[in-house]
């Protein structure tokens, strides 16, 4: 932090343009939501794919992280 004060006394933090951020947010957001749904809700409230293998495998994590499991 000490070397940053050399640049300017009150540093204006540069913001990232939202247009630059949007594709990252969209694609990673979709991916992340998919992962969260598989761990938190799949084969409980709904089943895609059918069965209970995912539910059983992440069973303890689903309970522990606060999601309704069964």
């Amino acid at each position, binding site marked *: *932090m000490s*070397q*940053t004060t*050399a*640049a300017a006394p009150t*540093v*204006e*933090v*540069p*913001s*990232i343009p*939202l247009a*630059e*951020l949007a594709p*990252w*947010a969209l694609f*990673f*957001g979709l*991916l*992340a*939501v998919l*992962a*969260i749904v*598989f*761990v*938190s*809700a799949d084969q*409980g*409230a*709904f089943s895609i794919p059918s*069965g*209970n*293998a995912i539910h*059983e*495998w*992440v*069973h*303890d*994590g*689903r*309970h*522990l*992280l*606060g*999601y*309704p*499991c*069964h």
Partner: protein
Amino acid sequence: MTARAFLVRGLLAGLFAGIAAFAVGYFVAEPQIQTAINYEESHEDAPATHTHSGDAGAEAGHHHDEGGTVVSRHNQRTWGLLTGTLAIGIALGGIVALVAAGVLGRIGALSPGQSTALVALLGWVAVILVPFLKYPANPPAIGNADTIGSRTTEYFVFMVISIVVTVLSTMLALRVRDHYGTYTGLLAGVGLFVVVMVIAGQLMPTVNEVGDFPADTLWYFRRASLITSATMWAVLGAVLSGLVGRLYSREQSIAARRALAASL
């Protein structure tokens, strides 16, 4: 400071967060989950499992659907739990990092590391703590299989309300702060959040399927659940804000050197 730089650091922080949550969950929460499963098995009507004598019965596997896949208790509490905490940790890490990238320089006079830490803190309150207060985590043996659909919907609806109101409250706080100062701004933001969430909590349906489940185990499990998620978000916030702060000071020093070189 680019979106990519934030995302990469968020994924790394999420990895650490997932590992930490697994470690805490394994040692703090798994004993309570096992107690709950033992209780469930000892209260099942059919004499299906008579071996509820400690670990011998524990290896029989915990499942609900006849004929479905059976994952052993050992796999559920080790690799299964690790899968869950890592997947959620890395997914949250990326999301928190991209939100932190979005609010960078837009959230008052905070440095990049500070605004990132604030995102993680508000994230835990909005995503975990407030939904937990309305729909707390339940151990195995609690919950009617017939209501899993509505309970899941209600949980996620309340979580989305909480997230949206957190964003709106933050925007209100920043707007009020510009005109009336930080104290009034914080008061307005926190006030809006508390009032709206209390009203939403009163309006949303209550779920109570605890039955005669032992209260001590229920409390230990819920406390362990909160400790585990707090660990996940704390490690995520600490690692990510540290990495972001380091990235920023490195970019600052490079910029300072360039300015010095240009002035020569």
